[in-house]
Each structure stands twice: as structure tokens, then as C-alpha cells.
């Protein structure tokens, strides 16, 4: 090989690797510019990790606190518990009937969700698919109602629910709604109705008129077409509205705590139960932490199940009438 050839080779090497003399950051930026997909992927993972850490780390830490025996609370580390006492998860059910609190919240949330979905379906159908006078005014009314802070309704509702109504006497102890689940899910259903109406209205308005017409010609009433055709086809919207309502009502504290006296047999909700571990002389942080984790489970399970329903409804058309 001659001298000339060798220098040619050297020249080729340098042109092939031009970023040898760049800094790490510069090289990285150059790569990102030439291949933007990598940049998008990197930012996606970064954002996801950030989101997961900020939402899941408190959970992890809650779990650490729950595992720490009561006396060692001050020694809880950032990543490690201050001891090992899984008994806290049992103790929450023995010290208080915490399962009853969860059941109360769960039942109230289920009933409220059913009511909200049913009424919002009717309203969503009317607002989304029919043309009539004063539609926008009514819709605005619904919207305005949802802007009121719940506290605005509290005083009148509280007075109403504390009154003894004679006709309710055969149905409800002493004829007053106070300390009954009705006092909770009636106002809550009403408060969270507007959101569901808006969600369902949007979904129902997307269903082609022809499908509803076809159902009606085939033999359904308008209501039948709504529940046999429009609702199943809007499964993702219905699931979204349902899950949102369920979670909000399940987690709701303001009304639930003020409309009952806080005892489990008075239909006090789950949050009330957690706060009951806060005694006069001592705050049982480990039990509160354990109770919080247990209380999340029903909602978490529901969301997972509902998500599967949404996905299957979309892909396989598995929703049967």
C-alpha cells in the first residue's frame, strides 16, 4: 500500500465519523434531530415514568407506613418500613367494622352510578339526538347547575333531610332521610349528573340516525332503540361516565360525612371510617394507611374490569343486546 493510499483511507475514516470531537450532549442532540422518533419515544418514557412515580410512590409509601408498627412510626424510611407488622391490615377490621364502611360507600356509589347512567342516558338521548325548542337554554341550565359548589346546596338539603316526613315513615325509620343512604346518593347523583349527561350526549349524537330508524322500524320504541342499539354502541362512553361517577361518589366526603352521624350502621362512608382511626389521644397512622389501601381496592378492581369491557366492546363487538 502506498503512502497516498494510506492518507486516503485516513481521510475516509474522518469523514465517516464526523462527531468524534463533539460533546456527549451535542452528539445526542444530533442523533435526535436525525431520528425524531427516538426523541418522541424518549420523552414519552420520561413523562410516563414521571407520572407513574408521582402517582404510585405515595401508594408505596402508604404501604410502608401501614407495615410499620405503631410505636416505630418515626423510623419510617423513604423506601423502607420502620418495622414489619402486616397485622395492621387485620386490625382495621377488628378495631372498627371497616368492611361495613367500605360496603356503605360501595353500595352508595353503585346505586348513584346506576341512577346517573339511567337518567343521563335519557337526557343524553334527548339533548344529543332530538331537535326541540329551548334545547340550548335547557342545556345551559344543566351546565350552570354543575358549576355550583356542592356546599351551596348543603344547608337547604340538610334541613330537608333532617325533617320528619310523615309519608316516609313506613319506609324509613322516623321518616327522616338523615342517616340513611338516600341522604347521600340523592344529592350526589344530582350533582354528578351534568357531567355524565355531557359525556353521553356527545356519544349518543354520534350514532347514525339510520340505526335508530332501523331499530324502530324493526320493532322497538324510541326507548327500546336507546337501550338496545344506542347504549351498547356507545359502550366506551357509558363506561367512562359510569367509572367517573363511581369513583367520584365512592371518594366523596363532604356530603357523605355531613348527612350521617358517622356510625357505620348510619351508612357513614369509607372516608369517615378511615378518620375514625384518629382517636382522642392518639392518631393511628399505620391503621389509617392500611385502611386507605384497602379502600382503594374496590375502585381499582372496577376500573380494571370496566377497561376490559371497553376494549372488548370496541374490538370484538362483544356487546350483545
Amino acid at each position, binding site marked *: 500500500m502506498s503512502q497516498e493510499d494510506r492518507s486516503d483511507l485516513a481521510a475516509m475514516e474522518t469523514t465517516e465519523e464526523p462527531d468524534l470531537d463533539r460533546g456527549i450532549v451535542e452528539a445526542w442532540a444530533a442523533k435526535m434531530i436525525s431520528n425524531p422518533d427516538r426523541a418522541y419515544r424518549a420523552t414519552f418514557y420520561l413523562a410516563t415514568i414521571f407520572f407513574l412515580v408521582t402517582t404510585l410512590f405515595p401508594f408505596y409509601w402508604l404501604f410502608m407506613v401501614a407495615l410499620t408498627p405503631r410505636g416505630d412510626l418515626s423510623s419510617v424510611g423513604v423506601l423502607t418500613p420502620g418495622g414489619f407488622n402486616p397485622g395492621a391490615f387485620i386490625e382495621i377490621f377488628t378495631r372498627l367494622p371497616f368492611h361495613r364502611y367500605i360496603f356503605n360507600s360501595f353500595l352508595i356509589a353503585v346505586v348513584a352510578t346506576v341512577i346517573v347512567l339511567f337518567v343521563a342516558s335519557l337526557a343524553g338521548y334527548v339533548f344529543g339526538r332530538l331537535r326541540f325548542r329551548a334545547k340550548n337554554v335547557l342545556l345551559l341550565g344543566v351546565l350552570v347547575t354543575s358549576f355550583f359548589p356542592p356546599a351551596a346546596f348543603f344547608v337547604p338539603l340538610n334541613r330537608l333531610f333532617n325533617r320528619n316526613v310523615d309519608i316516609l315513615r313506613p319506609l324509613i325509620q322516623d321518616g327522616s332521610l338523615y342517616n340513611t343512604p338516600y341522604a347521600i346518593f340523592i344529592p350526589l347523583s344530582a350533582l354528578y349528573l351534568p357531567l355524565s349527561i355531557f359525556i353521553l350526549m356527545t356519544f349518543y349524537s354520534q350514532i347514525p340516525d339510520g340505526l335508530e*330508524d*332501523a*331499530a*324502530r*322500524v*324493526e*320493532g322497538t*320504541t324510541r326507548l327500546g332503540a336507546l337501550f338496545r342499539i344506542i347504549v*351498547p354502541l356507545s359502550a366506551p362512553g357509558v363506561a367512562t361516565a359510569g367509572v367517573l361517577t363511581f369513583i367520584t361518589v365512592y371518594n366523596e366526603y363532604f356530603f357523605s360525612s355531613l348527612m350521617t352521624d358517622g356510625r357505620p350502621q348510619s351508612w357513614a362512608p369509607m372516608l369517615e371510617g378511615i378518620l375514625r382511626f384518629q382517636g382522642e389521644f392518639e392518631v393511628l397512622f399505620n391503621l389509617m394507611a392500611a385502611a386507605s389501601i384497602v379502600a382503594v381496592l374496590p375502585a381499582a378492581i372496577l376500573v380494571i374490569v370496566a377497561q376490559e369491557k371497553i376494549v372488548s366492546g370496541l374490538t370484538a*363487538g362483544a356487546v350483545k343486546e
Partner: protein
Amino acid sequence: MASVTLQDITKEYEDVTAVDSMDLQIRDGEFITFVGPSGCGKSTTMETIAGLTLPTRGSIEIGDRSVTNLPPKDRGISMVFQNIALFPHMDVYENVSFGLRLRKYDQEEIDRRVEQAADVVQLEGMMDRMPKEMSGGQRQRVAIARAIVREPDVFLMDEPLANLDAELRVHMRTQLQRLHRELDTTIIYVTHDQAQAMTMSDRIAVINDGVLQQVAPPLECYNEPTNRFVAGFIGSPAMNFLEGEVSDDGFESQYANIDFDPATHGVTSRQEVTVGIRPEDIFLEQDSRKATSPTKAFDAVADVLEPMGKEMNAYLLFDRDVEASAEGRGEGQLLMNLAPDTSIAEGDDVRIVMDRENVHLFDRESGNAITHTLE
């Protein structure tokens, strides 16, 4: 099977009248087609028959029952929609049996009828397919199966072939005619395509601006249109029109005169009229023996030639000064059919004659037909 009677059906929306006092008798077992340009009220009329829209005024009878205020499900009808409207979350079997299941038929009966309907439209072996897995033609057949499975008194079909490609449309057209023969049921068919109306129907109801123009068998609509609208709408390519007025001894216009006796054809001198002549009733002068009763010859210029294979469309101008209109055929333009082997080139001068036997005369103001022949 049932007859359908519309009486004074009117449908008004806030500021438009979609259907204007329509009276129509549809006979038992008849295949009738509502035809008209889009927005003419034909679909609205069908929706009022189906019960999907309530008429502002008027009454509807199906068979001997007044159904004006009945919901769609109690009218004994079934319907095929333009956008096919299969329920996307149900498979073929569930789609077809939907109406039967709602009416609580027992399972054996449902299976028997679904199988029979699937047989008629040739859908065997597709019962567990989902609509989105099927082609347009298959979906349309499912929609038809869903309509026939309930054995309704009246079938309503709202542009069922509009969303299919041309080849399939022609195929389905013959299928539908065969279906009508097999089922022997009253079929009301809506389309804006006059070719479908001509080929399939026992009678055509031509509708324009919500007003019924003519109800007659296809050939009668073609040969004896009641007014200028029907004349221009039925037939493809469309009829030629010449604006002019009646003179003492015939028709006079800027470009052409036709001799006839005004008195025997129901017109008076100086009356403003429109002459209508179909492209196939115009001939070159040398072919004038093909016309039953040729007029005297006119001069014209061949503007554009369209060889179609079995014939040739020739767009003519009455003289070289006429500006060819960009949209449709304007004044002074004329379309004629020629044999495909005619030796003629664009720009040639030609002499043409019209067949007097098939010259239509319309009153210019009202548009109503005065006569369908000038013999």
C-alpha cells in the same frame, strides 16, 4: 301484502314545505318508485309512510288500517336504508332475527324464517359474520334479509343501491326485481336515479319540490310526460327543449320553425310554448325516412361528438354564433343520437329533421304538457 293510501300528506318544517298535500294510491303488490332530484321530498314522504316522521297534515292507510298515528313498529312495514344501517354490534344472525326476537317468536320459527330469508338473498354460511367483515353488497343483502324475514305488508327501500359500486348496483337491481316477483309484496322504492326507476318499477311517482308531478308506468312517464319537469327528468340523456311561441301556422323560435295546425293541437296563436324533443327523435336529413313524420330540415353544426359504442351522442349548435353553455344544454343547443358508424366530424355542417310524431309541446308559463305529438 297491502295497498297504501296517502291522503293530503303535508310535511312542513319551520320554514320549508317538504311534502305538499300529496295524494297517492299504491296498489297491492305493486312496485312503485318515488323519483325526483335530491331534496324533492321523496325521502320525507317515505319516512311518513314508515312512521319515522309524523306528517303535519293528512292521513296514511296501509291495507284498511289507518296508521297515521301509529309508531313504526306497529305499521307492518320493513325498510332498507340508504346507509344500510346494520347494527354493527350484532352478527348477521342477530341482525336478521332482531325484529323476530323483539316480537317474541319461538326459537324454531325464528331459525326457520332466518334460514329462508338467507336463502332468498344467498347469504348461507355467513350467519356469524359481523357487518364490518362483509363487503358492501353482502351487507346490503343482509339488510334486505332483515327486511323480508318479518314478512311485512309493505317494503320501503330508501336508495338501497346508492352506496354500491356501479357493477354491483346493476346486479342488485335485477336481484330486487326477482325478489319482488318471488315475494309478491308491495314495494315502495325511493331513488334519485331515473334509470333505476325506469327499469324496476310497475309505476313511477315523479316528485319535485314536494309536489307529486306524475304517477304512471315508466313508459308512460317517458312518452307522455305531464309537464316539462317530468319530461326533462325522465330519460337519459335528457330531452331537448326549445323556447318559442305559436304562430298562425306552427311553432316559431329563434332557431327553428315547425309547421303544424295550432287549432287541432290545443294552442292558440301567440301562446308562449316550449317544444320538447328527445335525442332519439332527431335524425339527419338523409335518414329522414326513419322518422314517421319528418319536419322540414334545419341547419346545425356538430359541436361535440360522444361515441358510446352502440350509439353516438352528437351535441349540435343551431348556428356557429351560439355559445355552448357550460352547464347543461342551453338555448340553441341540441343533442341527438346517431348511429355509431355515421361519418361525421366535429365542426361539420349538418341538416337535421325532427320526428313530428314525438314532438312534445308544453305551456311555457305553467310547464304543463299540451300535446305529445304534432302529427
